[in-house]
């Protein structure tokens, strides 16, 4: 089962992060959160922090999947789990990119 988890973990974490950021966006717009911090609008800052966290999580997972103590011993599983690890990272970077470039509640 560990090998199956190695294959599924990165996309699963992407899905959780994607849903969480969408939920955070809903909360920000639904409850009208406003204000500024560090010279940026607070909603944008919160969303950017969540985006960064999602990418960091994917990077950590990918690093783990390349680490000898965590990565699969068998070649096929090692390859597939790393490929899905990269898929999770690319998905996090691309699908959550709108937090940096579009209006948030318009």
């Amino acid at each position, binding site marked *: *089962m*560990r*090998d*199956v988890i190695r*294959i*599924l973990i990165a*996309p*699963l974490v*992407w*899905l959780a992060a*994607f*849903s969480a*950021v*969408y*939920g955070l*966006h*809903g*909360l920000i*717009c*639904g*409850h009208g959160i406003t204000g500024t911090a560090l010279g940026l609008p607070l909603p944008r800052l919160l*969303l950017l922090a969540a985006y960064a966290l999602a990418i960091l999580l994917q990077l950590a997972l990918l690093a783990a999947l390349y680490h000898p103590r965590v990565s699969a011993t*068998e*070649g*096929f*599983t090692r*390859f*597939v789990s790393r*490929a*899905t690890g990269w*898929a999770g990272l*690319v*998905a996090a970077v*691309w*699908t*959550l*990119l*709108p*937090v940096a*470039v*579009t*209006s*948030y*509640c*318009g």
Partner: protein
Amino acid sequence: MNALQRHRRLTTIWASDPGLRGWFTTVNHTDLGRMFLMASFFFFIVAGILAMLIRAQLATPHSAFAGPEIYNQIFTMHGVIMMFLFAIPTFEGLVVYLLPKILGTRDLAFPRLTAYGFWCYIFGGTMMLVSMLLGIAPDGGWFMYPPLTGPLYSPGINTDFWLIGITFVEISAIAAAVEITVSILKYRAPGMSLDKMPIFAWYALVTALMILTGFPPLILGSVLLEVERAFGFPFFQADLGGDSLLWQHLFWLFGHPEVYIIFLPAAGVISTVLPVMCRTTLLGYGWIVAAAVALAFLSFGLWVHHMFTTGIPHMGLAFFSAASTLVAVPTGVQIFAWIGTMWRGRPELRMPMLHLLGFFVTFVIGGLTGVMVAVVPFDWQAHDTAFITAHLHYVLFGGFVFPVLAGLYYWMPHVTGRKRFFRLGEFAFGMIFVGFHVTFLAMHWVGLLGQRRRIPTYAPEDGWTAVNLISSVGSFVMAIGIAMVLIDVILNVVTAVRGTRNPWGAGTLEWAMIQPAPAYNFASLPHVTERDPLYGTPDMALRLARGEGYLGEPRRDWRETVTVDIASGRPDFHVIYPANTRLPIVMSAVTGLFFLSLLLKAYWITPFAMAGVAVLAWRWVWSLGRKEDIGPQAIGQDITVPHAAQVARAPGWWGSVFLLTANATFFGSLLFGFAFLWTVAPGWPPTEWLPASLWELGLGLLGAALAPAAMHGASRALRRGGRPRLGLALAFGGTGMLAVSVGAMMLHTPPPVEHAYNATLFVLGGYAMFHVTLGALMIGFLAARVRRGYASAARQSEFPIVTLWIDYLAAVGALALLAGHLPGLLA
């Protein structure tokens, strides 16, 4: 024992009952797979006839062929039957028939569950057909948006047929998904490690996991809408704290993955058939597995792209637009792997290959228009037009029907044991391909000209007449092609000559047996050392027939097989399957009675039906037990393994893990609905919270801590040869405390008809109470087993299963109580 004697002995053990009785008592996967496929193709024809009626209506302007009310039922039922009664059951049927054969084993993990799922599908599908014959079929479109389908605008029974009938059918899908997942992970030929699994099994595994997590949001949506319609709980009524957009979220959380649930098995067929047609092996096996997994997950991040015109903020739209474009990448990886396979091999233009080429052309066009509608500004223009209808038909017909027809011709010799004699199929393919593209290219065109989907008619001055007529003519050409396929199949089944074994020269294990397949599949189980075992060992079929594999000597009328370690494929347990029984059909009939009582609002029958299901479920599980320990079993090749009843992680434990995965998705969707309404719906916060009570909350949380701790203690005690009764009694007490606490919460909830908050709390409480009842029944079952001598330190496998369920009960019970009490406490 020679090969013939072995064949006769195994046939006696494994065959379905003779005659008509066998139809109703069979638990054999080959028979059930064929029954599934016959039923699903019957529904395909019904839905195809409905499609012809739609095209007849739209062929001319101001058509008087059908009035709007009947037309609404026709297009709704076309979509409903194609999606729920044809596409998913065809996947189930194909997998039920094929999976044990291609994995090198004798049956699926839970044969009675296969039969139960089949009969639920038949009864639920029949319910839908009856509604159509009576003229009271669902008429709100296949995705049933409220408020149109709410009690105010659709007061008749039509919508209830959809909500209740489809939920009934979905039991079949969930049952099949659990079955498939456990079968692929555990029921494989010894030696078949993950990297040697046939690619079809990877696709089936990914699809099954998607069903387990994709269907529960729809089941929840159906339950909530039916409860709103029947009892007035206002989940989707904006004036009472509900929101009709909640339905769209729940529906498309299912609906978009559904597209890939339909496509991925078809991709499994392509990846299996294409290399054989090209006389080579599949290029990029590992890449394809990774792409299928990535595609499955990405598909869950696309649901809002069906809701681009609902007023969602730009950033929300951009998330889903980005995800929708990204999904083209893993799809492209698969397409390029298939093209590479063709490039490397020597393609032969045989019958299955024709349909594969039809797939390539059609699906790529459908994929490209998919990228077009993933772009928000384009979608705003094309939304709700015939362009979208055409796009989805390119994806679904191209991505499912062409591959399924390829699979039909590929595996027909396996099912019938005959060689195709008449050559009607080639001509039929031409008719289908040309007819399809004429129909749906024209439909793209008329959509861009502004024709909305689902309109019953139009005026000549709209300028759509000629295009619609062309589209209708194309559809009738396609229908004639489909009819010719049917005739071709019947003629070949009835009149063709006997064929040779493995006529395509394939490498996968389903061809290493007699054709048509015997009830037991393999006289002895193979040991697998490569991905295409028949290429390395061409005489494997003969060796297995001679009993040179595992379990080659039938014993004591046992239906035996072995399970394997998930990763390595090393044999780990010995399994004895249950024999033929009427229990699945009886239980699905009683389950049907439960749904029928809801449909007809005969609520006095409902508790009796639920009790009936509980009694039958008890009997179902009880019949599996033994009063004596079975020692380690020799399976051949000098290997001995323990029996599955004597291990902690028996097949039932694995089945429970995946059923609970679906269950947790349902509960998670309910919590999402609660949070969504709280955040987005108008009319929040409610005027009155649940009166919070620390005593009630504390009692429930104590019960939630006690029940699992005591169950773990009982399991431990049994394992060490002690008495588990005290642990069971304490666990029962813990569930009782939870029951009191949850019951009090439901009792003190303000009237659920007054606000969506109250209604949601009531449903949360009801969900927890259902699991409390289930947990109490399970603990009672274990107590009865201990009392009657069915449990021992060796025969311990039932305890971990119940422990798993009690752990889950404790978690959802505690969460439901916290969701109920915390707002009041904080306020």
